[in-house]
C-alpha cells in the first residue's frame, strides 16, 4: 500500500473535491425543475398573496367581446379566459396570442385578475396535430349535447389520446409558449393544468354506456360503449395519472408565481377506474403534496341542486364523493357553475339540473349559496351571469362573504367647464 505524506493527501483531497464539484454542477442544474422535470421532493416556484384573490370570476371563453361588460360588475374580481389550442397554434410551432392579448388587456385595465383555462384537450388540438398519422388515437361516439352546440351527438370522433408521446410533447411546448408570453404578467394569477378531458378542459373523459341516444339508418338503437373505446385505445389508470402529473408539473414550472389548478371529474365505469374518485384522489394527493402553497382543485359542474356541504350523507352519490374530496382541501379549492342562470330556459334549465322552471335570480342565488357552503377561494360564473344587472347584487354579496375585495367600478365624472369658440 502506498503511503502518502500528509501534504500530498491534502492536495489530493482538494483536487478530488474540486473535480466532484465540477462534475456535480451540471447535475445540480438539471434538477432545478428544468425541462418540466422536477426531482423528487422539489417544488417549483412560489405563490404571491394575489394567487388566491378570493371572489367571483367570470368565464369569458375565447372571444374578445365576451368580457367587455364584466368590468362594470363590482362583485367580479377576476376572469377565466379559455384560449383554444386550435386557434393559437394553427401552424406547427407558430403561436398567435393576439386575441388573448386583447382579452388580457381589457381585464388588466379594469383591475381584474386573470386566470387561464387552456383548452389543450385532444378535441381542441389543431388539425395538423389531430391528423398526424404517427399519433395514437381513440375512436369514440360522442353523446354530449354540449360539444359545439350538440351538432356532434352520435358522431364518431377520432382524436389523439392524452398519453401519446408526440401529443404530450406538443402539449408541453404549448404550455411553454404560453409561459414565454404570459408568465411574467402580474395580472395573470392562475393557470389550469388540463390533462384528462377529451372535449373542453374540465369534463373528464366521456365513458358512458348508452343504447337509446343513437340510431342506425334503419332507426334501430346502437349500443354506444365509450368506456370500451378507451380500453381499446389502451387506457390505464397509470397512463392517465402519469400524464396528469407531467402536465401539472409542466404548468407549475412554466408559471412559478401563479396558482395552479385542475378541474376534477369522477369515473363512471369500473372497467376504467377501480372507484369513481380514485383517479381524482391520486392526482389531488400528488398535486397538493407537491405544490401545497399554490395548487387548488376545482370542479366545473355545480348546479342549483348540488348537495350543500353540510348535508352530504351516506350513501354518497359519485358527485358527493368527489365533493367530499374537494371539501377536504377547503378553502384552497374552486367551484365553477355548470351553466348560466341567465335565460336558463334557453339552456334547458341546465344550471337547475334541467328542472323547469328555472328563474335566473333564484337559480343563481341557490347555486351561490351551495358554492359558499364549501368555502371555496374562487367561484366561476358564466359571463352572461356576470353581466346580468339583476344578478349583480348576488355576486357582490358572494364576493364579500368570501372575503374578497370589491372593485371600484364607478365611472369617471362628466367633464365640466366646457367652452366653445
Amino acid at each position, binding site marked *: 500500500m502506498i503511503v502518502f505524506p500528509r501534504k500530498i493527501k491534502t492536495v489530493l483531497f482538494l483536487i478530488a473535491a474540486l473535480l466532484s464539484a465540477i462534475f456535480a454542477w451540471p447535475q445540480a442544474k438539471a434538477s432545478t425543475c428544468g425541462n418540466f422535470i422536477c426531482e423528487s421532493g422539489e417544488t417549483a416556484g412560489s405563490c404571491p398573496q394575489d394567487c388566491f384573490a378570493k371572489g367571483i370570476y367570470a368565464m369569458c371563453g375565447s372571444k374578445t367581446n365576451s368580457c*367587455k361588460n364584466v368590468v362594470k360588475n363590482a362583485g367580479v374580481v377576476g376572469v377565466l379566459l379559455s384560449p383554444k389550442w386550435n386557434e393559437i397554434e394553427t401552424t406547427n410551432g407558430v403561436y398567435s396570442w393576439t386575441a388573448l392579448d386583447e382579452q388580457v388587456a381589457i381585464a388588466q385595465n379594469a383591475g381584474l385578475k386573470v386566470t387561464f383555462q387552456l383548452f389543450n384537450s385532444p378535441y381542441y388540438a389543431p388539425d395538423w396535430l389531430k391528423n398526424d398519422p404517427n399519433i395514437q388515437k381513440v375512436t369514440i361516439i360522442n353523446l354530449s349535447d354540449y360539444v359545439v352546440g350538440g351538432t356532434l351527438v352520435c358522431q364518431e370522433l377520432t382524436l389523439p389520446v392524452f398519453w401519446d408521446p408526440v401529443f404530450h410533447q406538443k402539449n408541453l411546448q404549448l404550455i411553454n409558449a404560453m409561459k414565454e408570453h404570459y408568465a411574467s404578467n402580474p395580472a395573470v394569477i392562475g393557470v389550469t393544468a388540463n390533462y384528462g378531458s377529451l372535449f373542453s378542459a374540465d369534463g373528464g373523459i366521456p365513458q358512458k354506456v348508452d343504447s337509446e341516444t343513437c340510431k342506425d339508418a334503419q332507426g334501430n338503437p346502437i349500443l354506444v360503449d365509450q368506456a370500451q373505446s378507451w380500453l381499446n385505445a389502451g387506457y390505464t389508470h397509470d397512463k392517465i395519472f402519469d400524464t396528469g402529473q407531467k402536465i401539472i408539473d409542466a404548468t407549475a414550472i412554466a408559471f412559478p408565481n401563479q396558482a395552479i389548478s385542475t378541474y376534477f371529474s369522477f369515473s363512471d365505469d369500473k372497467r376504467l377506474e377501480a372507484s369513481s374518485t380514485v383517479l381524482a384522489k391520486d392526482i389531488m394527493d400528488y398535486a397538493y403534496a407537491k405544490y401545497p402553497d399554490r395548487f387548488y382543485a376545482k370542479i366545473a359542474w355545480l348546479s342549483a341542486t348540488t348537495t350543500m356541504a353540510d348535508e352530504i350523507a351516506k350513501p354518497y352519490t359519485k358527485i358527493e364523493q368527489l365533493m367530499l374530496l374537494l371539501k377536504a382541501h377547503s378553502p384552497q379549492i374552486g367551484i365553477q357553475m355548470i351553466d348560466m342562470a341567465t335565460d336558463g330556459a334557453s339552456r334547458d334549465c341546465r344550471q337547475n339540473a334541467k328542472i323547469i322552471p328555472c328563474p335566473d335570480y333564484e337559480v343563481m342565488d341557490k347555486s351561490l349559496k351551495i358554492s359558499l357552503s364549501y368555502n371555496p377561494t374562487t367561484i366561476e360564473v358564466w359571463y352572461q351571469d356576470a353581466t346580468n344587472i339583476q344578478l349583480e347584487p348576488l355576486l357582490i354579496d358572494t364576493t364579500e362573504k368570501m372575503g374578497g375585495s370589491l372593485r371600484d367600478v364607478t365611472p369617471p365624472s362628466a367633464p365640466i367647464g366646457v367652452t366653445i369658440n
Partner: protein
Amino acid sequence: MRNFTLLQKTLIVIGALVIFLALLIFTAPEPTGTAQLSWNANTEPDFAGYKIYYGDSPRSANCPPGGYAHNITVGNSTSHTVKELSAGKTYYFSITAYDTAGQESGCSSEVSKQVSVSSDASAVTKFTYAIKNKISALWKK
C-alpha cells in the same frame, strides 16, 4: 360672318359672365369651418381619456350616445378642434370621460356653435360662399 350689334355683344358677355359665376358658385367646394372646444381636466386616478359627441341637431336621447351623428376619441387632452364642419350650420357638442376599464361618464352640458367659413379659406371660397348666402336669402324672401 354674322355681325352683332353692340347690345347683342353686351348681352353675350353678360350671359357668359352669369354662366361662369353660376358654375363657380355651384361647383365650388363646400366651405367648412371649425369648432374649438376646451374643458376642465378630470382627476380620477384611473381616468384614461375623453370622447366628443357632436352633430347638427341637439341632443335627442340619453347621453352618451345622445343621438349625435358623430363621435371622436381625443385622448387625455383638455381641448380639441373639430374640423371639416359645414359652414353655416349650427353644431352641438357634448363631452364624456372614460377610464382605463373603458367605463364612460355621462355627457357634459351641451354647447353649440354656428360655424362660419374658416379664416384660412381661399378668397374664391369666401366669395362664392357669400354669393351663395345672398342668393339663398333672396330666394327665401
